[in-house]
């Protein structure tokens, strides 16, 4: 099964909702349904779902033993242990809960750039991850942000809400500049339920990484998907150029030659390495994603390898 190139409209199965046709075909979605987001932490959840919870519950998953006290449900006594030790122990079972997956998509103008448009790639990636979450009975919240959160999809719980998810993702449009730090701080403060925060951004915002701390302080498990287009990693322009900033329209004049481009690439790699180091220290899962990478390869190979999905 092939994933359609990001710049092209994918073929949707017959009878699929309109939003599907912009994002994935049916076969791809069937494959997504077999994926599950991996959360490295257990989060307290308000509702039962398909994930382990800190709370001990009634699920079939064994958690621990404790001595029987009065009032305990006799059905939970492990008679096998009693047979061996003649002491009453009660089986503690994990309480299964649902995971809240926050997908934050950078919708600044800098994302609307690239040989394979980063925002288009981000839309599909967000939609795919959201769909994976819905298929696993996780709650999904998707937000688009620039200098602030500019659009927000309220919590989705069921697979039946896929269409809303895809429609929302398809409708994300570039707008304004980025203020990642302020946006993340704001997002962390206004959400009561933490969970997995998947941040899809190009990070082209000096100091934006500081905002990750705001999320973590609120108990978010952060996954940072750093989008980079080939035009950014390997610029093609040569000679006398005027570089125009996509976001603020500022311009700089440069004479691009091999030496200048080498310096740029060095600087870019240093920046990526610094970001990765930062994330490692802050236990943020970081994945640098090239928009030239097919989404199928990213989801089914790279994310699996990086333990983002399973």
């Amino acid at each position, binding site marked *: 099964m092939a994933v359609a190139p990001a710049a092209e409209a994918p073929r949707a199965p017959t009878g699929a909702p309109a939003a599907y046709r912009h994002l994935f075909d049916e076969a791809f979605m069937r494959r997504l349904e077999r994926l599950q987001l991996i959360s490295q932490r257990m989060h307290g959840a308000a509702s039962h779902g398909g994930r382990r919870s800190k709370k001990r519950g009634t699920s079939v998953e064994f958690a621990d033993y404790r001595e029987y006290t009065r009032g305990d449900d006799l059905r939970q006594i492990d008679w096998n242990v009693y047979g061996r030790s003649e002491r009453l122990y009660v089986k503690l079972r994990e309480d299964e809960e649902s995971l809240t997956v926050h997908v934050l998509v950078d919708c600044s103008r*800098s*994302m609307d*750039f*690239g040989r394979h448009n*980063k925002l288009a790639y981000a839309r599909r990636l967000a939609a795919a991850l959201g769909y994976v979450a819905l298929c696993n009975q996780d709650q999904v919240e998707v937000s688009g942000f620039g200098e602030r959160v500019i659009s927000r999809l309220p919590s989705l719980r069921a697979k039946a809400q896929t269409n809303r998810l895809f429609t929302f993702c398809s409708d994300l449009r570039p707008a304004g500049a980025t203020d990642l730090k302020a946006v993340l701080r704001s997002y962390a403060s206004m959400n009561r339920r933490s969970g997995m925060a998947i941040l899809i951004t*190009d990070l*082209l*915002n*000096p100091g934006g990484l500081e905002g990750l701390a705001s999320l973590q302080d609120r108990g978010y498990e952060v996954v940072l998907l750093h989008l980079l*287009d080939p*035009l*950014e990693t390997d*610029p093609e*322009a040569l*000679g*006398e*150029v*005027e*570089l*125009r*900033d*996509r*976001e603020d329209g*500022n*311009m*700089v*004049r*440069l*004479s691009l*030659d*091999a030496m*200048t481009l080498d*310096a*740029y690439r060095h*600087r*870019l790699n240093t*920046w990526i390495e610094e970001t990765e180091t930062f994330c490692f220290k802050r236990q943020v899962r970081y994945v640098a994603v090239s928009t030239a990478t097919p989404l199928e390869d990213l989801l089914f190979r790279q994310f699996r390898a990086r333990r983002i999905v399973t």
Partner: protein
Amino acid sequence: MTLLSPWGLIWLLAVAAVLGVYLLRPRSRRVEVSSIWLWQGVLKEESARSWIQWLKRHLLLILQVLVALVAVFLLARPALSRTVPVGRTVVLAIDASEPMLANDGNPAVVGGATGVTRLQEAKARAHELIAQLEPGDRAIIAAMADRVEIAAQGSLPQDARALRTGIDRIQVRPAELDIAHALHVLDGLTQTARVGEIVVISGGVFDAQQATYRPPVAIQVLQVGRGEADNQAVTALSARRDTRGDLQVFTRVRNFGDQPATGPLRFTVDGQLYHEQQITIPPQNSWESVLTEFPPDAALIQATFGRRDLLMLDNLATASVPSPVARRVLLVGGRTEQLERALRAVPGVDLTKQEPQAYAPAGFDVYVFEGWFPPEPPPGHWVLIDPPTNGSTIAVSNTLGRRTTDRGREINEAQVARILPSPLLTGVDFTGITVTEGKRVSLPEWAEEVVSARDAPLIFMGYPRPYRAVVYTFDLRSTNLFGRIGFPILIANTINWLTGEPVGQASTEERTIVPGAALQVQPLPRATHVQVETPDKRTYRFDGNSALRFLDTVLPGAYTVTQFAGSEAIARRVHVASVLQPGREMAMGDLKPRADAAHISTVSGPQAAQFLILGPGAEPAHSEWWRFLGVLILGGLIVEWWWFHR
């Protein structure tokens, strides 16, 4: 540095064009990026090396402008002016004319005693000049007089000895210096020279006015001798017999000096002093006299002016008393009295007449056959008049005469049509001579035409070995020659040419040659041997069966040529070698340097002998830079190409 083609700088406009194209070209492209945040750092680095960036940004333009400038510079042909050493060709033209024997040469130059001739000084000067030449120079030693002779030529230093030997071998020729001719020859000698120079070493006795042409090289005149004029010369001495047979001797002595000259004038007759008298000649004047009462049998008379002067050689003159050479002529079959009279009128001719039947060919120098020819050619020179139809060595095919053409026009086939230059016709006017009838003969291989009809020879002459011959193809009676004054001259010319005597000159006249010139002797057929006696009484003996050229005539004086038939002297002739050429005595005796002699020089300013040659040979040259500039342009283009495609 000079620009050989400064107009090439007009291509600087091309440089302006390059700049214009650069200025008009589209500026930097606008490229949109997601953010310039990452580029800011690069920009800082670039700013830190801004001048390098500026250079890099404009390197193509700079290279193009530089290449264009160098190309324009190249088109203007920049060159360094310098002089390059080059071997000179120096012609040392030494005057070898007769006045160079004047003894007023500078003894200090020669290092000898007094009495140094101008030629000796000239040679010494030439040696000094040879010493001034540098390795690589080429020298030509030329001796100038009436003609120019190359005495030696070669390059320094390997040919120095040959050059010096050539200088030493130069001898005076008894002739005037023909400076105009000499300059033409010297021009030819220097035409191939890159740096040519002519040094004329002369006593200055020549007519510079004649030299209107100057070779396009440096010409310098180095005058030798003190330039004195104290010279006297016997400019004329001739002896002749008057109508009574008495001997008359005419003498002229010229004083070319500026002071009166007094001295003894001595006459010797056949080597014996005969008369002496003291004479005084005013300056620039002549003493003349006609002396008589010489012995009637005198053969050789010499006059000597005894005063010491610049040139003693011209103080002696020699004259021979003219006497005809005896030639025995046999006339066979003579038809006319006019021919017989004409033959007898030739001086020295001893005529014998025979009929063809009595023909006895022996002991004659010339055989004249008229209307008959013997079966065998005679043993001497011969003349054939009106060749017979048969039995002659001349093949007669037909007769020439009046006839009517196909168109009915009457023509004379024997009419004179061509008259060619010939010694036979010297003094003979052949125009108006009519020939009414003749013999049509083919011109023999040994003969050349003298007078011809339209398609047949009338008179021809030649050398049917071993003798000479003249043929008249017509009967003298069928012409109007007898009535013409030129007829006896024609006959005399014929006899004189056959016997080797001067044609157009009475055989009794004195024969004068210049010393060194060949003395030509045509022995008579009867002669068995020839003896030549020189002025210093040396004798030479030659066979008498062929012509001879006697070359040992360097000494001025009398050369006596005697022809013998066995032991009998059958002819005697005195040839006088005179220093003063006949007709040029006055000019050659004047040894004073001419005032305008130095005018042939093309280098101004007085020149000392030791600095006469004009310094080291060098010629201006330009070293162009096109190779270097070409490599520079190529290198610039390569760098530009590399920079553009890197």
